[in-house]
């Protein structure tokens, strides 16, 4: 029995550190303030991303990767490189998609589905979704590396598609490292941002696919 004690003593702190701990109100407000300050001071973001869609029942994963660009206030370029080529850019209310060599334009004013996706994507990546208390209820926790915000849609209709969103904020700089989207079934999508470059010059032209 005593032979198990030392490995357990080593293992238990590791397990405890990996667990998420809830946060008190003061800490939550501090995090919200820091995330907003970071969002306001972040003029541009360039990063690589890896996206994993896990289909639980099928015990399978679809993995894709590419490059992500953001420029204040509302310019976004999401470029998939592997295993397919696909680019989506958001310029205010206008969405452009380049797929299979063809470019199409949509307006979020007339396309509610795109408008909602646009709001969630931009809000998740910038962390500004935390302040959307009208549409999301937020629960806060932390582990050793991240502050984790669990956003639950307030609308029952919305919850039929998306059960919750988890946003992982790096404790060192309050930037978003990871976003997880949980669908109403057991499937979920995890997007991880790596090789992040903040506030480097980005030309507006990369957000225009025409």
């Amino acid at each position, binding site marked *: 029995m005593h032979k198990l004690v030392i490995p357990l003593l080593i293992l238990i702190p590791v397990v405890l550190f990996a667990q998420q701990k809830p946060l008190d109100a003061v800490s939550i407000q501090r995090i919200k303030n820091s995330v907003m300050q970071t969002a306001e001071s972040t003029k541009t973001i360039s990063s690589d991303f890896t996206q994993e869609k896990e289909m639980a029942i099928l015990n399978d994963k*679809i993995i894709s990767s590419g490059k992500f660009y953001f420029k204040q206030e509302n310019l976004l370029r999401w470029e998939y490189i592997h295993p*397919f080529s696909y680019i989506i850019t958001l310029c205010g209310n206008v969405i452009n998609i380049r*797929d299979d060599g063809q470019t199409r334009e949509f307006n979020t004013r007339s396309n509610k589905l795109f408008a909602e996706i646009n709001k969630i994507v931009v809000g998740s990546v910038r962390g500004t979704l935390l302040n959307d208390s009208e549409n999301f209820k937020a629960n806060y926790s932390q582990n050793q590396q991240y502050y984790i915000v669990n956003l639950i849609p307030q609308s029952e209709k919305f919850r039929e598609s998306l059960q919750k969103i988890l946003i992982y904020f790096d404790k060192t700089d309050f930037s978003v490292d990871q976003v997880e989207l949980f669908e109403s079934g057991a499937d979920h999508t995890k997007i991880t941002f790596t090789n992040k470059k903040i506030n480097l010059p980005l030309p507006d032209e990369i957000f225009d696919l025409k």
Partner: protein
Amino acid sequence: MKYLILSNVILICSLAGCTSIKPRNLGPVPPPPSASYQLPTANCRLPTFFTDPSFQKALFKASMDIRDYHLTGLVFMKKILDTRYGIRDTGYGMRDLGSCVYRVVFSNELGMTFFDFEISADSMQVIYCFEPMNKKPMLKILGTNFRLLLGTHMTEEPCLWFFQRETGNLVGKDKSDHFKRWSTFSPAGDTLYSVACKSTFADATRISFTQYNLGFPGKIRIENPFVKLKLSLTLLSLN
């Protein structure tokens, strides 16, 4: 009243004509080039890309045009049950259907699911379908499309063979469930170009296969002319 009925009949006939998917210009098969030549198969239970024992799963880049919607993303198809090799757990309990069962998942590039179906020879179970497409007529059409594509239709009668005069292609006609089906092959009978089926003009479906690589089509196109649905699949990975 008579003119109203007549105009409706004309309208329906016009629509039926517009949705014709039967290969054109068919005639009897000419004498075989040699004594050893045989028509492709005694029955037309095709396509077999997905019923082949070696098939496990495939990932496609997909785009779907239906009415005002243009959806793009990924289609993932996986064989989850093949009773020819024993009974397996599908995740919903043990099943023995005497054929193959597949899951077909269409999601956008960001991973959000448009639809998730379980397809077998005699049914389609809707695991999830996003609200704008979750209508009975639409689900029926999609079910027919995927059952035809996956080759889960069982053949009820032997194939009748025809020769397409303008192309030299071989066309096999048979019946499956209550659908009439036409399968178009290359002149040599070794490459499947398209499969078309319908029970009424409203559910007419045409599936074409191109860009073959190692016996599997690199591009698949599914069309329902009556509802103006087009689904294009480009193979990204196989097994």
